[in-house]
């Protein structure tokens, strides 16, 4: 009888402890502009996160806990970003937040996140996100400054002395314009014409005509919306045969497709994710970009973009930090801050307490369009 009771007790205990072993899920929040004017950034990022979370959970999650992704669609609106950030931090009590997709939203919530000592890994690129450094705020997108430098290098190689700068009135365009203006003189190049156009512009013939009048040797366009394709079309249509450069915002093959024949020969810096197939097998990023590319394209039947890649990098970095430091937020923060040599889709990340971005100019490769496809420049 006693043995029976003992056996029952042991069975009971093990049943209890078995259910206790099933830990609560790890909540990770995502603030992304899934719809609205920034949807071309936020939508692929949301899809990437969902795909990666599914993959990770199938392998057992992190530290034995399943990941629960809470995605809030900010529609690109800073007020919603603020409201949802507070919701995610206070109500959902997420472990960390990935996103937002745009610099404007990130800057609006930077102070909120820092004061609440929450953890934020942003997919946006503005320098101000990580400069000044906020202890709890990181980002994974390469800096505009490096993109500009890559372009200047190529321009000098091609003997360009003065170029025309066109940029859109979005955050991305303004940030790029600032970096280009800062870096051009140091690179020995002159900006002979400098025009800002509205992001919804549907025809830029007048703007490129102004550039033509200034006698520029090359055109640099810095924007992230359809205007990128319109600019190059209009430029070619008015008979300009000079080299055309784009920012890394061009790194989405649909822009090349939309611009059709006008996109041929356009040069731009980009992360290697968009030429994943062409990377040599020995390249340090080859494995990571091919894994992401094949998984994403298989699941969603659309081409990968650098934007989706940011979300992939952000989550992978978070996961790696948790795996090494456990589930203490401050320890994870320190782990990210000291992470070195993390290979992502955007490049190889080396964080430090003074560098919460982790990327250098090597994150970029110079690409061009040939026969409607992205190829590395010089091939």
């Amino acid at each position: 009888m006693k043995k029976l009771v003992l056996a029952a007790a042991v069975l009971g205990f093990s049943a209890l402890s078995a259910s206790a072993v099933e830990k609560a899920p790890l909540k990770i929040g995502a603030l992304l502009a899934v719809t609205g004017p920034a949807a071309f950034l936020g939508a692929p990022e949301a899809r990437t996160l969902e795909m990666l979370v599914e993959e990770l959970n199938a392998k057992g999650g992190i530290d034995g806990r399943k990941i629960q992704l809470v995605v809030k669609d900010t529609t690109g609106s800073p007020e919603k970003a603020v409201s949802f950030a507070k919701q995610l931090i206070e109500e959902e009590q997420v472990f960390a937040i990935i996103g937002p997709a745009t610099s404007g939203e990130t800057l609006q919530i930077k102070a909120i996140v820092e004061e609440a000592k929450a953890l934020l890994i942003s997919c946006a690129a503005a320098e101000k996100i990580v400069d000044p450094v906020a202890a709890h705020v990181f980002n994974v997108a390469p800096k505009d400054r490096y993109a500009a430098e890559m372009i200047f290098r190529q321009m000098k190689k091609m003997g360009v002395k003065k170029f025309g700068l066109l940029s859109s009135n979005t955050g991305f365009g303004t940030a790029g314009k600032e970096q280009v203006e800062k870096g051009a003189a140091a690179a020995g190049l002159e900006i002979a014409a400098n025009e800002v156009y509205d992001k919804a512009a549907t025809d830029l013939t007048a703007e490129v005509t102004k550039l033509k009048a200034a006698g520029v040797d090359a055109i640099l366009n810095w924007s992230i919306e359809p205007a990128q394709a319109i600019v190059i079309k209009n430029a070619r249509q008015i008979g300009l045969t000079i080299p055309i450069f784009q920012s890394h915002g061009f790194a989405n093959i649909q822009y090349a497709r939309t611009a059709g024949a006008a996109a041929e020969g356009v040069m731009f810096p980009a992360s290697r994710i968009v030429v994943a197939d062409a990377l040599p097998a020995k390249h340090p990023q080859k494995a990571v970009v091919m894994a992401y590319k094949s998984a994403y394209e298989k699941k969603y039947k659309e081409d990968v973009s650098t934007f989706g890649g940011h979300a992939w990098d952000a989550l992978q970095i978070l996961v790696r930090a948790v795996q090494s430091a456990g589930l203490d937020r401050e320890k994870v923060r320190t782990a990210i801050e000291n992470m070195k040599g993390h290979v992502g889709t955007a490049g190889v990340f080396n964080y430090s307490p003074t560098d919460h971005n982790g990327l250098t100019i090597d994150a970029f490769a110079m690409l061009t369009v040939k026969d409607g496809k992205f190829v590395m420049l010089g091939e």
Partner: protein
Amino acid sequence: MSLELVLQYLVAGLTYGTIYAVVGVGFNIIYNATGIINFAQGEFVMLGGMTAVTLHGLVPLPLAIAGAVAVTMVVGALIEVSFIRWLRKPSVLRMVVITIGISIVVREGALLLWGESVRALPYFTGNEVTSLAFAGVHVSPQVLWSLATCLAIVGFLWFFFQHTSVGRQMRACAANRDAAALCGIPTRNLVTLSFVLSAGIGALAGCVVSPITYTSYGIGSGLAIKGFTVAILGGLGNSMAAVGAGFLVGILEAASVSLLPAAYKDAVSVALLLAILFLRPSGIFGSSAVERLRAH
């Protein structure tokens, strides 16, 4: 500035101007028949372009365009029948708000249907880089197609309103709706026809400029403001003047780029609108109907 540059700016202005002109004319057709300013006018242009691109995946280009125009006309008719027809002597305030509501619903519907990506029809002749050169000016053949279409639309409308019985009935309706009704003119159906016509020409214009300007779900609202500016500039109700006004506004915008930073190009047409409204709401070619509206 060399002559060549001036001409190049002129060509740019004519490109923008075509679409503004057509939207302005569309405003006028509905206004003449109903006294309503249709804020959803720009959405017809958007629907035309988007539908054509979708159809182009299935049928050859001319059929796709014809199909898109037909579909948009049906949408125009549906809008009139569902939202406008059964209102009894609505106040202007109410109508303004209703047509705004319609434009939002159409736009969000387009977003749901087609997503946020940008689309374009292929160029009718040539491709993205071909251009015809004359007098040192380079023009894409598509621009010539747009101009030709615009003129064709205007020509058709002129013929329709002057020389067909239906057109004349619509003019009677515009002049005095009650008297027209008393004469046995089916005013309610003509109101629907005005929407159908407006939608059709908007859609056609949307198709022909989409290779140049691209279409996406949100282009309608900006066009509505510009179209209204054009309609007012030419004098509300005066279709032919709207065409001239459209080109004028387009050229002014293009010219403004040579003087001001390009970012303010859109503000130029709005500033022009405000200037007209404050100083001369009857527009360049004036009409006393406006004074009637003012005197309320």
